[in-house]
């Protein structure tokens, strides 16, 4: 009896508060690597993870890029999906009914190619009750501004966040691109513009060439580098952003196992996202969650929050 009672009390608390949401644990998928949730339902219980993050949504359906869209690199992969998605309307009609049945907060990742598009999607997300929070991807080229990426310009980033904020009362997470000189400048800009949390990083722009055909491996020439290869860059940026802002930060980039996730948490991330690793192992997130729990037990911590930001410098 005594032993039986002990087990539950020694299980560490893994719940974290993120921008007004309470998550059962700090582990969620990275947008674009988990479809709309349903795709991975056969492989893991969606009620075991902290949140579900959808593929990036846009106002209208988006066709994406020609193939090849993916290429493997050393300890990483390049992708140039081109943000293919069903569009916000079809999402609500065809994907929400399934998500409604899952007792896990749904975070809708979204984007636009113009300021207006961003605003319009935000308005619609506000109206979908099943969506707990929105994750704003600002790694997209601003077609009106000659294709400069919103997220590489603090001014443009601030503007889009301000607009979206004005349409959205739900928690707003802003996801930053790492392809910038100083990520803290953009982080501060989006915090000032009203972000409730910051997610970093998106993919590093990369390229790979097939030396036999002498063509780029991706039809789009360049693509986004993800996977373990980029983890040191992601950890560095998360650490920098945590120092620079006071809103919570979600760490993402190259997480495969619990040790990787712990680096981000110790650096100060309130939650983490697992991306490419889902492709390698559909139950990767469960392994990460179990490993974090085990680590807390071994370190004698009864609450994950004692770990977050515990970096000794």
């Amino acid at each position, binding site marked *: 009896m005594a032993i039986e009672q002990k087990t539950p009390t020694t299980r560490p608390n893994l719940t974290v508060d993120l921008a007004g949401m309470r998550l059962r644990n700090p582990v969620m998928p990275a947008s*674009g690597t988990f*479809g709309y949730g349903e795709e991975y339902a056969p492989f893991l219980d969606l009620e075991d993870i902290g949140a579900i993050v959808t593929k990036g949504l846009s106002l209208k359906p988006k066709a994406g890029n020609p193939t090849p869209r993916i290429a493997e690199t050393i300890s990483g992969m390049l992708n140039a999906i081109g943000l293919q998605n069903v569009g916000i309307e079809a999402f609500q009609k065809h994907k929400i009914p399934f998500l409604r049945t899952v007792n896990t907060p749904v975070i809708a990742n979204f984007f636009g190619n113009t300021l207006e598009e961003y605003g319009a999607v935000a308005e619609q997300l506000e109206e979908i009750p099943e969506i707990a929070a929105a994750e704003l991807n600002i790694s997209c080229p601003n077609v009106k501004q000659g294709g400069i990426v919103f997220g590489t310009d603090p001014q443009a980033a601030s503007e889009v966040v301000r607009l979206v904020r004005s349409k959205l009362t739900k928690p707003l997470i802003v996801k930053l691109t790492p392809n910038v000189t100083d990520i803290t400048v953009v982080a501060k800009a989006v915090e000032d513009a009203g972000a409730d949390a910051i997610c970093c990083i998106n993919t590093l722009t990369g390229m790979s060439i097939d030396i036999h055909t002498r063509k780029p491996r991706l*039809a789009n020439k360049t693509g986004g580098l993800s996977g373990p290869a980029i983890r040191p860059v992601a950890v560095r940026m998360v650490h920098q952003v945590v120092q620079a802002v006071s809103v919570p930060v979600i760490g993402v980039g190259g997480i495969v196992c619990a040790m990787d996730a712990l680096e981000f948490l110790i650096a100060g991330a309130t939650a983490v996202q697992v991306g490419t690793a889902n492709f390698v192992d559909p139950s990767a997130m469960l392994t990460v969650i179990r490993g974090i729990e085990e680590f807390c037990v071994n370190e004698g911590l009864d609450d994950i929050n004692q770990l977050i930001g515990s970096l000794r410098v």
Partner: protein
Amino acid sequence: MKNYRTKIISNQEVSPGYYRMRILAPGFGAKARAGQFVMFRVQRSLPPLLRRPFGIFKVGFMEPDCDDMPPKEYVEILYKVVGRGTTIMEALHEGDGVELLGPLGNGFDVTDTDGEMILVGGGIGLVPLYMLASELVEHSSVRLLMGGRTRDDILAVTEFERLGVETYVSTDDGSLGEEGLVTKVLERKLQKYPNAKVFACGPMPMLRAVREKCLDYNAPLQVSLEEFMACGVGACLGCVVKGAGHTEETPSYLCTCTAGPVFKADYLDWEKLGQTEETECGGCS
């Protein structure tokens, strides 16, 4: 479908550069349909990072190791050594631990069993046709037209014959069977059997030629396609092909991993299939 963390039963070279690997997979066969595939994890440590897709060649049961054990259910893949992942695979042995996600994807439609069944395989494209043949021979007369560059690329033909399939071999260099392209044989068969249904898997130029012949003779065609895959379950959107009627304005992209790998030929946009096009966007995701 599920992720099997399991072991290799055997891994043997069957022709220069081609291997057959049997993997222990209890419960797999009942779910698997002809034309489906698995995502094989080459090794637990990196690299390579991503899983590799392989067609299901066979499913079955082997004698148990001793009387009181259940028979060992297996899935068998047949693969060609082409790069980093398959080079690691060829060195694997009986008993080595592997991971296998499957069965995945959309297989052949075998509901309509009327008429002659003609299977066209090019090299390693033969793989999904074996299970298909096993199903089709129950109801129909089945012919396999098997093509390859040389005799080394002609695989498992006797196994098809053992199923009762009539087989026709052609090689580019004439080192086995008829010299020339498999479509030459196909044309003769289509002339002979006006009610034939065609099922094809192989390199894109072959599929394209098969498609032309089937259009000429008005024969329904199903093809199994290959695309780069990261997830195999419809989540990454890396493996799309264009559906029939695709335009820039009304795009129709189909996932090879979920809508395929087997498609009815008419559902596809053959214009640019298997060709690389270029765009230029930030390409972040």
